[in-house]
């Protein structure tokens, strides 16, 4: 967004994610609240227990966006071990993390939400990541915690990823407000789909470069060079759209706290399936506006989801649609009416739709849509995770690597898997109500 709008004025929209620092007196300069952009610094903390990735960022094209003091790194990594990340490094870096968080928070007029971005299968993101999650709840209890978690696939080459994931899940269950699970497989499929579209050579199918959900604006990298970059950009776009209504105007605003309020009917059921459309815009502008309704249909197609799941055949607890661009309330209503009959909603939330309209579309598009579903279709993912965990745990495979770590006990494992089982049970209970006979509970009787 910044690259495309070269006006260079620091505004409300930018200020949600960046500080404007007067760097004339060095990096520690005061913040500038209005006017021209001097130097943007991301309101972010980068944490990794090895240096490679962070170093690459600091040498890359975005290096100026990151304040050198907002980093925490170590050398040896966490060895794909949740316990090392959570217990060992957690303890070691606690003070430093708290201090840097406080510093970043002080620069905010009004801190509404933390985004935690990590993976579940490794050691640092999973272990230290969930440690930080706990920390955020302790130090900033009123600030929302949204977590974007990359879940490992079945063929993950990290053998201990089931342990790490389940141990992390317990923390997510208890301390996150909302979790957006992501699976690499889905991201990869989306990347491929776009790739096919670009290379299909079909007439009228030239894709606008900067419109691809896999591209960062202005980047001319081909899709094949760095597949993780393309995949990660999809997640970046997800977070952008999630916050668009908070940053830009619209006729029906939808803030982050509203997402949590409307999509989480019971505290632990806060796992949301996300889907993004469109994936790209065709450069040929003469495409008719059936495109708009198609966009809504696509949001409910598995091709556009960021995890492998089947919401259409499971039970919706709640659904949110955040629309950007020139879309009006009648378009929204028409499409909800059209799609409703093919979706199953839980009996006490038959009209469980939360909607938002933001006037500003993403760069390169005339409109876009993000769908967030709280749906029991995440249950199979969790069951599989539990199964993979149990396979290892029964044989006590690799357990000693974990139990070696100070503060780590066998009970951590049993508690974690128990927490996951409880969660699965909650989804089971809801699934059992699907398709059952619905009788309205009897109303209160008033003495006439």
């Amino acid at each position, binding site marked *: 967004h910044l690259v495309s709008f070269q006006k260079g004025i620091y505004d*409300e929209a930018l200020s949600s994610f960046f500080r404007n620092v007067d760097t004339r007196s060095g990096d520690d300069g005061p913040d500038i609240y209005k006017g021209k952009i001097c130097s943007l610094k991301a309101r972010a903390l980068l944490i990794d227990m090895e240096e490679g990735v962070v170093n690459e960022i600091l040498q890359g094209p975005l290096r100026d966006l990151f304040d050198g003091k907002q980093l925490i790194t170590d050398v040896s990594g966490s060895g794909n071990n949740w316990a090392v990340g959570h217990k060992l490094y957690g303890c070691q870096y606690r003070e430093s993390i708290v201090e840097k968080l406080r510093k970043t928070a002080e620069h905010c007029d009004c801190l509404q939400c933390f985004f935690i971005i990590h993976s579940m299968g490794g050691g640092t993101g999973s272990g230290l990541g969930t440690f930080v999650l706990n920390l955020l709840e302790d130090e900033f209890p009123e600030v929302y915690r949204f977590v974007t978690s990359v879940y490992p696939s079945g063929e993950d080459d990290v053998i201990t990823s089931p342990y790490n994931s389940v141990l992390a899940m317990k923390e997510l269950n208890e301390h996150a407000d909302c979790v957006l699970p992501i699976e690499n497989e889905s991201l990869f499929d989306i990347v491929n789909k776009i790739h096919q579209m670009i290379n299909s050579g079909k007439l009228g199918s030239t894709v606008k470069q900067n419109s691809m959900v896999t591209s960062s604006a202005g980047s001319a990298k081909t899709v094949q060079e760095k597949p993780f970059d393309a995949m990660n950009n999809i997640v970046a776009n997800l977070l952008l759209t999630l916050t668009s209504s908070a940053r830009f105007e619209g006729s029906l*605003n939808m803030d982050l706290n509203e997402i949590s309020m409307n999509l989480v009917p019971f505290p632990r059921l806060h796992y949301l399936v996300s889907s993004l459309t469109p994936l790209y815009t065709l450069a040929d502008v003469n495409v008719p506006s059936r495109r708009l309704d198609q966009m809504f249909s696509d949001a409910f197609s598995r091709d556009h989801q960021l995890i492998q799941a089947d919401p259409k055949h499971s039970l919706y607890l709640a659904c949110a649609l955040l629309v950007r661009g020139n879309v009006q*309330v009648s378009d929204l209503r028409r499409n909800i009416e059209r799609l409703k009959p093919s979706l199953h909603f839980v009996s006490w939330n038959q009209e469980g739709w939360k909607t938002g309209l933001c006037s500003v579309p993403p760069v390169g598009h005339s409109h876009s849509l993000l769908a967030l579903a709280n749906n029991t279709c995440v249950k199979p993912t969790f069951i599989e995770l539990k199964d993979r965990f149990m396979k290892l745990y029964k044989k006590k495979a690799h357990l000693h690597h974990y139990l070696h770590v100070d503060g780590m006990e066998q009970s951590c494992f049993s508690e974690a898997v128990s927490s996951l089982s409880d969660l699965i049970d909650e989804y089971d209970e809801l699934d059992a109500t699907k398709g059952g006979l619905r009788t309205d509970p009897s109303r209160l009787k008033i003495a006439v």
Partner: protein
Amino acid sequence: MSIVTVQLGQCGNQIGHEVFNAICSDVRGTHGLCSKKENESYRDACKERFFSEEESEVPVARAVLVDMEPKVISQTLSIAARSGYWKYDDRSHFCQKQGSGNNWANGYSVHGPRHKEIIMNLVQKEAEKCDRLGGFFTIMSMAGGTGSGLGAFVTQCLRDTFPTSFILNHVIWPYGTGEVIVQNYNSVLTLSHLYQSSDALLVHENDVIHKICAQLMNIKQISFRDVNQVIAHQLGSVFQPTYTAESGLHYSRNLLGDLMETLVPHPEFKMLGLRNIPQMPENSLAYSTFSWPGLIKHLRQMLIANAKMEEGIDWQVRPPCLGSSVPSSHSTNKPPHFNTSVANLVILRGKDMHSVDLGSFRDPSLYTSWLNPQDAFNVWKTPRAFNKYEKSASLVSNSQFLLKPLDNVVRKAWNMFASKAYIHQYTKFGIEEEDFLDSFTALEQVISSYTIL
């Protein structure tokens, strides 16, 4: 007498802006179709009611804008000022950054007490600007968090601070198929609380207005702006100056007082519905003519058949035969679908309204029996045409209009409450299950009262 408007939340502010726009544009227009003197009287009465003049010649709306996030208010202020025809007072607004998260409890229990002093100070300032304060008009949606929760709290504060002033709450009912998932909870909490502090609730339903936009106004891609403009037109048709039976040769000064007196004889019955005809796209106006008998006939049938607009009226519905001596509280007499009224007000704007025969509205069979039919029906008039309509007729009705919608909201909320879904979001901010039960009880009482009319 002047009215202070309090705009609450995104909906309240977006609609409030359209209302002042519609009122100002109506007054500015030369479509009065009446004498210059008449026009001037009308304009003066309207200005006194809704605007104050400051050193700049642009009229300043008598309004306080409140929202828990900044974007809507800043837009509203700047669009109004840019029109050049009117503006808001630059200091009469209050906003925060966080929003209320669609959480009634957050609006009511957290934002309310926290910001009570600042908000009431702003209201006090506006009230002091008035030579004579005629009361308060609040605009809010009941689906979200600020308009609904903070709105309910502010209404209570208004009642406490101004115990003898009239308070009219304009409440927007959201689309039935979700704008907000917890909208039914928020609605139940809002309505039950407003019922305690407010004098009357004037209701607009998004679904109804949407249909008007689609079928009468012929709008293809309906936006919230379209919906809000229809609402503003309907409100304007009630708020603009009129002559009442008592006001004699002058435009009546006490809008809210008059409304309450004519429409709310009993505190148990506060739900007011609004109908306005004709409604059509502006470019069709020149080709349409209407007769008062035709308009009155349609409006009356809309009343008794509970039609939401002038198309698709059920003409089969008839009032019950009076004559049997069964008192009307045993409503076995009344045919189904017949809308019984407590009180009605018809407002006629346009030429030749002197000769209009409104006997059909005075028919006692339309009304519940405990009021004198003379007292149950009133009419206000002005020869001055409103908003480019050569003739227009409005009906403000205290009747069973809103019984079914209210029952629906309570039913859905109760359904959800039985499963305890989302309750933790409210208890987090201090609204407990008991508070919900109190609200449900209060509304079941209202439903029961209206049912046995």
